[in-house]
């Protein structure tokens, strides 16, 4: 027995009103029409679901044609694909990122306890190979993820042992949770939730032993190491198999396997969305993604006008002058994005260091406060960010519903005198010949920081901080290292300090509170406590102190609550403790970012939020992009 979610009902009602009014006569792209006329393809009405999703264009109804070009970096840059054409989840974030709306699902219901979620699929919805898409496909994807034997990458943020899927009928799928989770819909709408509509059972079933007994042999014959790897790369997260059926607006033509320089996608004739005039989407014929080796290569392509719509990798503060100057020649315009991240760089001392002396020192809140006050953030803003930005700690953005002023602003004032006093107060008064303070163990305080070499701005910030901390007698040994090395050291818990972007500045703070308490492996300031919270059986796991434990308990309580106001209240408590603990040191609140858009492109959003959980530009519905005549 479950109650209907009022929001879902009203949306479903709206769609129900909008849909049939236009259903009489759908039109399609000229190339598809030719194929239909030649008898190679079913007519458009037979390819669309009975009740297609009607997209209201951002600006205007478009026309068919053109190619959308963008660039990928290296051979594993699946992130850009998942953010753009790959963002066709079961339920989606709306454009403004205020709520979760139906997408592949025609509508959904949630019970009051947030334990039962029912999704209604569209009748006649088809995969890109023309096979029917049903609730069986959802169950299949969920069961692979749930399977203990599945050794591939799992979607983040789901507790698999608590989720049970059930097929009510081919168009109805029900998820039952053993513990309430008020964030499940957000998870499903995030970039990590796409898995559930990504694996077609009729195609991917051959790689899953529960469906096909000799799945492992089939996977090996197809060139994979195991069935798990085949599932992960061919059906979930990678795009190495161009034959795999999809629900996207475009279907894959060339595999992204490292061998092909150009990854091409063509219009999916079975795509389930139409515009308000009944034209089947997408408008653009083809999507081309060029595999490049480095960011500079992409910048050149942008300036030459070879990127039509993207901000992937290149849209940094450093590159902005060059890209700004190239607008006229390259035939593109810069559109602003609102960065949802709350920090350009967060310095994280390892509070769970293996070395007891370092751990003791780093766990002194006064020590961290002193380091923070010794940072001249205005200088960082001036030098690295051309004066744009604001001194900021690791805290939700001012525009966020979770804004907490203490957490955001404490210890951001540049005050080396107070910092020196704090350090003296800790008893760190002895100094060596170079003026470096001696730690509790009598050794000079030397903090080693490896900053990932592909993030040049981190390195510039770190070099400034090296000089600033020298003033208070702290030796920061900052150097560049390959990104994989940096992460390897974190995984081994052999780092003194880590530096990373401040994710979780807006509503995504709820889903990924990594800087507010030790939450996941990205909480590099307390890897051991995070492992404990994740309960993944790691040998690194270690029970945290009482305050941290309190935050963890509060978060579990938060998840169990379906009420948004209650979630907000509990999260506020977590943030208060975070402000008191002061785990990490933030630097600068990012100003607006930018995205490059071809001048001829229509329905480009004037402004959009930029973050990972809300996979910008995905939720704008990229199938509505078109080339103006």
């Amino acid at each position: 027995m479950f109650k209907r979610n009022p929001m879902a009902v009203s949306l479903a009602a709206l769609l129900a009103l909008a849909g049939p009014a236009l259903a009489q006569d759908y039109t399609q792209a000229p190339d598809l029409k030719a194929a239909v006329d030649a008898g190679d393809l079913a007519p458009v009405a037979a390819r669309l679901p009975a009740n297609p999703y009607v997209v209201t264009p951002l600006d205007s109804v478009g026309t068919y044609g053109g190619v959308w070009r963008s660039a990928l970096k290296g051979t594993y840059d699946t992130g850009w694909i998942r953010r753009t054409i790959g963002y066709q989840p079961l339920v989606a974030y709306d454009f403004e990122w205020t709520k979760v709306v139906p997408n592949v699902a025609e509508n959904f219901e949630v019970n009051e306890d947030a334990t039962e979620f029912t999704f209604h699929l569209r009748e006649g919805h088809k995969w890109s190979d023309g096979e029917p898409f049903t609730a069986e496909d959802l169950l299949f994807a969920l069961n692979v993820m749930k399977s203990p034997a599945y050794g591939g990458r799992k979607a983040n943020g789901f507790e698999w042992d608590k989720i049970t899927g059930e097929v009510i009928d081919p168009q109805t799928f029900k998820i039952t949770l053993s513990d309430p989770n008020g964030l499940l819909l957000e998870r499903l709408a995030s970039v990590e939730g796409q898995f559930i509509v990504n694996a077609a059972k009729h195609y991917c079933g051959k790689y899953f032993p529960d469906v096909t007994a000799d799945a492992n042999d089939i996977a090996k014959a197809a060139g994979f190491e195991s069935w798990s790897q085949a599932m992960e790369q061919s059906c979930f997260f990678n795009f190495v198999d161009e034959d795999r059926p999809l629900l996207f607006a475009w279907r894959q033509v060339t595999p992204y396997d490292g061998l092909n320089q150009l990854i091409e996608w063509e219009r999916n004739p079975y795509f389930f969305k139409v515009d308000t005039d009944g034209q089947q989407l997408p408008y653009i014929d083809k999507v081309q993604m060029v595999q490049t080796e480095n960011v500079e290569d992409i910048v050149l392509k942008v300036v030459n006008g070879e990127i039509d719509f993207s901000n992937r990798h290149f849209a940094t503060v450093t590159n902005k002058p060059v890209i700004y100057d190239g607008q006229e020649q390259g035939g593109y315009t810069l559109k602003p994005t609102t960065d949802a991240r709350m920090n350009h760089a967060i310095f994280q001392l390892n509070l769970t260091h293996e070395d007891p002396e370092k751990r003791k020192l780093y766990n002194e809140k006064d020590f961290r406060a002193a380091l923070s006050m010794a940072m001249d953030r205005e200088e960082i803003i001036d030098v690295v960010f051309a004066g744009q930005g604001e001194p900021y700690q690791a805290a939700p953005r001012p525009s966020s519903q979770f804004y907490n002023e203490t957490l955001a602003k404490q210890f951001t004032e540049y005050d080396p005198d107070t910092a020196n006093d704090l350090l003296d107060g800790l008893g760190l008064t002895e100094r060596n010949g170079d003026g470096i303070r001696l730690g509790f163990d009598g050794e000079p305080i030397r903090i080693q920081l490896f900053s990932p070499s592909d993030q040049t701005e981190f390195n510039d910030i770190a070099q400034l901080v090296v000089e600033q901390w020298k003033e208070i007698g702290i030796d920061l040994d900052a150097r560049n290292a390959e990104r994989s090395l940096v992460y390897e050291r974190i995984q081994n818990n052999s780092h003194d300090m880590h530096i990373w972007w401040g994710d979780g500045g807006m509503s995504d703070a709820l889903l990924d509170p990594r800087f507010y308490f030790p939450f996941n492996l990205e909480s590099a300031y307390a890897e051991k406590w995070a492992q404990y919270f994740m309960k993944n059986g790691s040998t690194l796991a270690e029970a945290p102190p009482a305050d941290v434990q309190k935050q963890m308990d509060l978060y579990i309580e938060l998840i169990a609550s379906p009420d948004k106001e209650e979630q907000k209240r509990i999260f506020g408590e977590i943030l208060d403790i975070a402000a008191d603990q002061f785990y990490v040191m933030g630097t600068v609140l990012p100003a607006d970012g930018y995205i490059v858009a071809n001048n001829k492109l229509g329905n480009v959003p004037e402004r959009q939020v930029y973050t990972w959980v809300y996979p910008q530009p995905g939720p704008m519905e990229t199938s509505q992009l078109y080339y103006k005549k």
Partner: protein
Amino acid sequence: MTLTTPANSPDARIGQVRDTPELAVGEIDPRIDLTHGTESQWQLIRRRFSKHRLAVVSLWILSLFVFVAIFAGFVAPNDPGNVKARYTYAPPQALHFIDKTDEGWAFRPHVYGYTVEIEPEALRRTFVIDEDKKIYLTFFKRSWEYKLFGLIPTDIHLIGPERSRDPFYLFGADRLGRDMFSRLVYGTQISLSVGLVGVIMSLVLGVIIGGAAGYFGGWFDAVTQRAIEFLRSLPTIPLWMGLAAAMPSDWSPLQTYFAITLILSFLGWTELARVVRGRFLALNGEDYVAAARYDGCSHLRVIVRHMVPAFTSHIITAASLAVPAMILAETALSFLGLGLQAPVISWGVLLQEAQNIRTLATAPWLLLPGAAIVIAVLAMNFIGDGLRDAADPYAK
């Protein structure tokens, strides 16, 4: 020791045609050219070298580089690590010597200041040279402190702005507002010393191993030759990369610097060893070497007293040609991000920081270290060329 003799001394008759009765005692036969035939080997070498115009010019250039390297702190007007937020990507200022004012002309070196504006849209600073803002320069200016030769603390600099706060960027500023000229000066110090120290180390290795191989021959020669062939057959860049990657990441910049020099010289000795071995083989058959042996000289005496002097010039030539290769190797390694790393400043490190589109498009002066490398390497090659010609002054 010099063998030149004054023309009017009695000894000057050596080499003269004797018994010319028309001449009084002490007089010199005008038919005889005294400037030839009485000079030492070194004088001949110097004469021959001075005929190689390019080599002479290069020697002056290289001397300048070496001076800059030795007195880096004195030459650099700004602290190379000093970050100035206001002047990120400031373009180079032209140096003016003559000051034109209402009172007339005067010798007063100066540069023009900038007016700086921030373009919030394009996220950058724009610099316009402001001819009204004259920044006068003084010689032997006291400003930031450094240690001359790494020992003597001082704060005197060759040149600097009268007011230390004024911007003085002869070669422009980098992305953090650091003075490119001063950085280049400090880079010269590191890059040249890596080249020289590396070559000296490989020279020692090369002379010992190559000399032993050439002198004794036999199985030792066979083994070293195969080893050299093996080392030379390895593609250098991947090998450097492997060795550089094997360096512990917690080494200090100084340790890395020495390790890089060691790596380069461990691979660089093979060439020199070949040259030395070849000379030994050639000289082994000479009569005077055989004579020295039959006289019962020890191996060491034969080598040091009789053989080495015969090819010192060749070694010097080979070594001087190896220096540029060593500098290029360091640059390549650092450019790839495997060699030296910031905060150490070398030409390779500077170029590595410049490898992005932003620099190419908006700050080409950051590529000046490339010009320094080209000039230094060319100069050293020309000098090596001149030395090679000069080493054998009798050759035509």
